[in-house]
C-alpha cells in the first residue's frame, strides 16, 4: 500500500518538476516565481521516495501523523507559501499598474496639448 502511494506521489512531483523546468526553459515562468515551485517539487519528491529521510522521520515524530498525511501537509504548506507570495506580487503589480495608468493619462494630455500648439501656433492661450 505504502509503496503504491510512494510511486504516485513521486511521479506527481517529478511531473511538477519537469513542467517547472520546461516553463523556465521556454521563458514562460520567471525564475523568481519558479523557485518556490521547484522547492515544492523537490520537498514532496524527497518525502515520498525516502520516508526514512531524517527530516521526514523528525516531522512524523513531532506531529504524530503518518506518512501520507505528512506528505500532503508539506505540499499544502508549500502551496500556502506560493499563494501568499502571489498575493504580494499581485499587490505590487496593481500599484505599478495604477502608477503607469496615471502617468500615461498625464503624458497623453501633455502630448495632445503640445500637438495642438504645434499644429495651430496662432491659437495659443494660457
Amino acid at each position, binding site marked *: 500500500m505504502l509503496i503504491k502511494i510512494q510511486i504516485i506521489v513521486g511521479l506527481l512531483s517529478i511531473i511538477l518538476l519537469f513542467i517547472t523546468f520546461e516553463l523556465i526553459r521556454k521563458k514562460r515562468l520567471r525564475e523568481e516565481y519558479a523557485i518556490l515551485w521547484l522547492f515544492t517539487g523537490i520537498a514532496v519528491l524527497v518525502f515520498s521516495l525516502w520516508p526514512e529521510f531524517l527530516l521526514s522521520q523528525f516531522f512524523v515524530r513531532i506531529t504524530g501523523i503518518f506518512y501520507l498525511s505528512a506528505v500532503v501537509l508539506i505540499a499544502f504548506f508549500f502551496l500556502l507559501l506560493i499563494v501568499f507570495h502571489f498575493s504580494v506580487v499581485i499587490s505590487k503589480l496593481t500599484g505599478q499598474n*495604477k502608477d503607469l*495608468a*496615471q502617468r*500615461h*493619462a*498625464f503624458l*497623453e*494630455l501633455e502630448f495632445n496639448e503640445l500637438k495642438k500648439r504645434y499644429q495651430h501656433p496662432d491659437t495659443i492661450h494660457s
Partner: protein
Amino acid sequence: MEKEEKILVIVPAYNEEGSVGKVVDEVHTHLPRGEVLVVNDGSTDFTSKIAKSKGAVVLDLPFNLGIGGAMQAGYQYASEKSYDIAIQVDADGQHDPEEIGKLLRALEERKIDVALGSRFLGTSEFRSSLMRRMGIFIFSRVISMIVGQKITDPTSGFRAANRKAIQLFASNYPQDYPEPEAVVLLHQCRLKMGEVPVEMSERYSGESSITKIRSVYYMVKVLLAIFVDCFKKPPALEQEK
C-alpha cells in the same frame, strides 16, 4: 496676493455623462478664475467628450482605476502644474460649486491645509437612508477618536487642499475607501484640517455606489481599512523646493 493663486477643480468622473457638463458649467460660473480638470476614470460613455466640449481639461485614464486612483491622478496633475489649491468636486452633482467659496475662505482664514465640506454641520437638511446615516455616524465617531478632532462627515468628497496637501496626495492617496482614509492619512502626516458646513443637493443623475444591502458590508470594510491604516507607516513628506 490671493488673486494670484492658481486654483484647480478636480472632478473625478466615471460614466457621468448626464451630469458632468452641468457640474463643469457651474464651476466655471461660480469660480471663473479656477481651471476645471475632469478625470475620466475609463468611462464607456460620452463623459470625456462632454467635459471637453464644456471647456474642461480632461485627463483620460486608460482604464477604470476607481475613485482613489482617479483622485490621485488629479492631484498629480495639480502638483506637476504647480497649482496652489486643489478642490475636489463630485461629477454627480451632489456638491454645489457655489459652496467652493466657503472652502477657499476656510483654507485661508483658519490656516488649515485641507478644508472638508460637511453636510452635517450647520443648517443643511440632508435626506439620506437611515442605514447610510447610521454608517456615517459610526465612521464619524471612530475617525474623530483616531484623529483627535471632531469630524462629522468623513465620507464627504467635497474638499479643498493647499499646496502641502496636494504634494502629499500626489504621492500618497488611499485607494480603497479614499475619503475616510484620507482623513486618517492627513492626521498621520500632521496636516491641519477643518470642517466647513456646506449644502449638498440630490444627485443630478446616477445612483450612489453604496446600495442598501451592501452598506453594512461596506461599513465593516471601511472600518477595517481605517484600523489597518492606523498601523501603517506614515509617508515622509517631501520638502517643497
